[in-house]
């Protein structure tokens, strides 16, 4: 009898802890949102969406961030709630699609970045190629975000994804991949048509270069001169 009681205690403890953790997480999200000035009613609703998102194994952080962004922009609460639900739904959909592409276990940040890049037209196959080519979840997130940024710069989605994939395959780190938009912009400012920018960068990679700047395959610490002086102040 005593043994049964101990076994029962050990079996029930994780369930009780999991339940407490879920409630605590929801309370934490609500408290955090309220602390940031969000109305308690909206905070409660967002916390519920965040809990559902976490319950599906997705990161709730993008949902929380989106709610905060909407609140500070004075967006009406119903619209904020609709936006966070839409974001959570898109993350769920992207994860399902990437699972269909054979990527079963994905980090939450990668799924968030994939949802963002999908909005810029990066399709499932290209997303899967970027994630597979990246060496870590951090690199995959950066690669997906860069591919989306390149589309915003005017490159077509397929070329943007190929640039990121090829960079990773040639040993570039996440930080180095973040230089791709800078190299693309440099070519654009030199007068290269946007439709040609991707091709030139890909050809440059073929020669161990990402745009004529003496590309470095050995590591990110070696200083490389940019194509043009970027708009940056390093104090």
């Amino acid at each position: 009898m005593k043994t049964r009681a101990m076994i029962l205690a050990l079996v029930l403890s994780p369930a009780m802890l999991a339940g407490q953790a879920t409630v605590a997480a929801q309370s934490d999200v609500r408290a955090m949102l309220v602390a940031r000035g969000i109305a308690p009613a909206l905070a409660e609703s967002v916390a519920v969406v965040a809990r559902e998102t976490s319950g599906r194994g997705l990161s709730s952080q993008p949902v929380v961030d989106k709610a905060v962004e909407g609140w500070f922009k004075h967006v009406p609460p119903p619209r904020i709630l609709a936006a966070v639900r839409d974001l959570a739904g898109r993350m769920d959909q992207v994860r399902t699609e990437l699972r269909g592409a054979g990527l079963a276990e994905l980090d939450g940040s990668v799924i968030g970045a994939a949802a963002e890049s999908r909005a810029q037209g990066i399709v499932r196959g290209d997303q899967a190629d970027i994630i597979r080519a990246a060496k870590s979840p951090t690199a995959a997130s950066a690669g997906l975000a860069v591919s989306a940024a390149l589309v915003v710069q005017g490159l077509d989605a397929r070329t943007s994804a190929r640039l990121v994939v090829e960079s990773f395959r040639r040993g570039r780190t996440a930080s180095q991949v973040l230089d791709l938009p800078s190299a693309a912009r440099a070519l654009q400012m030199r007068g290269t048509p946007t439709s040609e920018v991707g091709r030139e960068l890909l050809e440059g990679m073929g020669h161990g270069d990402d745009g004529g700047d003496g590309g470095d395959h050995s590591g990110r610490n070696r200083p490389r001169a940019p194509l043009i002086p970027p708009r940056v102040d390093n104090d």
Partner: protein
Amino acid sequence: MSDGLTRAANAMRDGLKSPGPEFTERVMAEVRRMPAPRRSPLHWVTQPRVVRVRPWFIPLAAAALLAMWVAGSRYGASRGMGQDALAVAARDTVYVRFEFAAPTARAVNLAGDFNGWKPDATVMSRGTGGVWVATIPVAVGVHKYQFVVDGNTWVPDPAAGTTDDGFGGRNSLIVVGPRGVVRS
């Protein structure tokens, strides 16, 4: 009076016959034939009992709880809780100069995912020609932002590419790489 009652009680007791051992056996046989009462699955949980906890069980239970706590923390971390999902791609930080021309504005602030979208977090300074300027450290990565004019008007950066913000507006996009900044 009392003696009368006692006598009456004794007379009644003497009149009673002992049932004998065969009666007890017959009753118990009948009881054994009856089906056992159904017990709730939670019977032995709700039934009070004495539980003796042996000394070795306490550290074992503490270790089990600690293991579950650590596993839960790591699970939460792996799910990105407490992280900026897209914003931080590396630990490097770069000072970025933001500029916005608004000659008639009384105040311009900068809000983005790098400062939690707080409109009052980054106050821009008015420069020459009505150009407002702010230079702030931004983590290497891809970021979204807008300018806040006179405290209530959110405006995307005309010098940067934009993406849908999900609320019917447009966020400006900035890619902060180790070598430089591109406003996509």
